[in-house]
């Protein structure tokens, strides 16, 4: 990004920022989705107020670049022994809305263990914890936007949203991208999970094609012989409008 977009010293008109593109209808979840019970008290009831982008929206932090350890991207190597479960490799590319690589950008993940239990004090699902699995990872994308994690396939787990409610197996992903408005937190699912149709969190996304973007693909190229299955999960962050204009 050029310095003209971030100067506030009066040398440049503050209005000529390059805004980020708005989401297409149906491509993001609705905030209020009553089938996901917690939204009933936590989703706004008033319409959002459209905010034309200013410097405040198009700038963003560098975060988490220091203090990343090699084991942070291998969730099976963070303890004395290996965690139980099916070892997997998750690999993908992060690009913007024009297909350009989002390089050197932090990705944080967290997940349940193979039995469907989080190493979190508030998770009381009666499935075993695994002393060799914390379920937390982080990495930076490389120059071409690629990332990879080694982990175990998380288990499905029950939640109390409705009768006999189960979350499909998923890994939480957190990404920053170049600006405060490109921040994305999402969940990656596994292909063919029979729980998709019953999961209000996934179903809160109106467009079926958009839901499919959260389902990773089995990838033989990422799969390592005699060692681990590979899944591919590409992520697209918001891109910019093509030209700067005054708003």
């Amino acid at each position: 990004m050029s310095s003209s977009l971030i100067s506030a010293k009066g040398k440049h008109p503050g209005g000529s920022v390059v805004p980020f593109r708005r989401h297409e209808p149906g491509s993001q979840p609705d905030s209020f989705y009553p089938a996901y019970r917690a939204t009933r008290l936590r989703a706004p009831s008033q319409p959002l107020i459209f905010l034309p982008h200013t410097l405040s929206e198009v700038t963003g932090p560098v975060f988490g670049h220091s203090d990343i350890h090699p084991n942070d991207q291998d969730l099976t190597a963070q303890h004395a022994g290996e965690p139980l479960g099916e070892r997997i490799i998750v690999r993908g590319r992060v690009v913007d809305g024009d297909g350009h690589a989002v390089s050197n950008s932090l990705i944080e993940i967290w997940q349940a263990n193979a039995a469907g239990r989080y190493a979190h004090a508030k998770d009381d699902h009666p499935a075993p914890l695994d002393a060799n699995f914390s379920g937390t990872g982080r990495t930076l994308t490389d120059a071409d936007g690629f990332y990879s994690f080694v982990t175990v396939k998380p288990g499905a787990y029950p939640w109390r949203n409705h009768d006999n409610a189960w979350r499909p197996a998923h890994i939480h992903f957190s990404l920053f991208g170049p600006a405060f408005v490109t921040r994305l937190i999402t969940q990656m699912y596994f292909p063919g999970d029979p729980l998709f149709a019953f999961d209000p969190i996934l179903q809160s996304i109106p467009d079926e094609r958009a839901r499919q973007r959260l389902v990773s693909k089995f990838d033989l190229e990422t799969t390592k012989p005699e060692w681990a299955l590979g899944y591919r999960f590409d992520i697209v962050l918001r891109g910019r409008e093509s030209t700067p204009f005054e708003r």
Partner: protein
Amino acid sequence: MDFTPTPSQTVGPYLHLGLTDARSIARIAGDRAKGERVWLTFRVLDGEGAPVPDAMIEVWQADSEGNYAHHGSAGDAAFRGFGRLATAEDGVCTFETIKPGCVLGPGEAVQAPHVNVSILGRGILKRLSTRLYFAGEPANAADPVLALVPENRRATLLAQPDPARPGNWILAVHLRGKSETVFFDV
């Protein structure tokens, strides 16, 4: 190729594992940061006024001269501009920072000192965006973003000074309901 952005999903109740246990930032401004030191307390409440004990707040703000530390760009080196915290059982979290300066807005407009705020949590399927402004700040009157907000809802964006503790500002964030906070489509 289709480069439609990936959909958002809730952070869920266990966000602390991946986001705040190891990487909270409560202190946005180091000791040497220039400007007026302030403490910003957020209290997140649901549609029934109950505290939200499992939310996360991320903030992004300019330094005391109105410059963003965009991608680590020059500005006040002791100032990072970004913070994130999980709310406690009482729905509260507090950042230590400096009061931001005025930021250039569209055209000739000047934006009043403000902090950009994201709210994430269980039951929040996509990031909620709002802003914190400072009650009593003269520049608020000409702020182009506050001007977009119906007058009767502007107060939901104004942090109030805590008379008992100088430098402390408090903003209640009502996710839903009668006193619902203004959220922006960014």
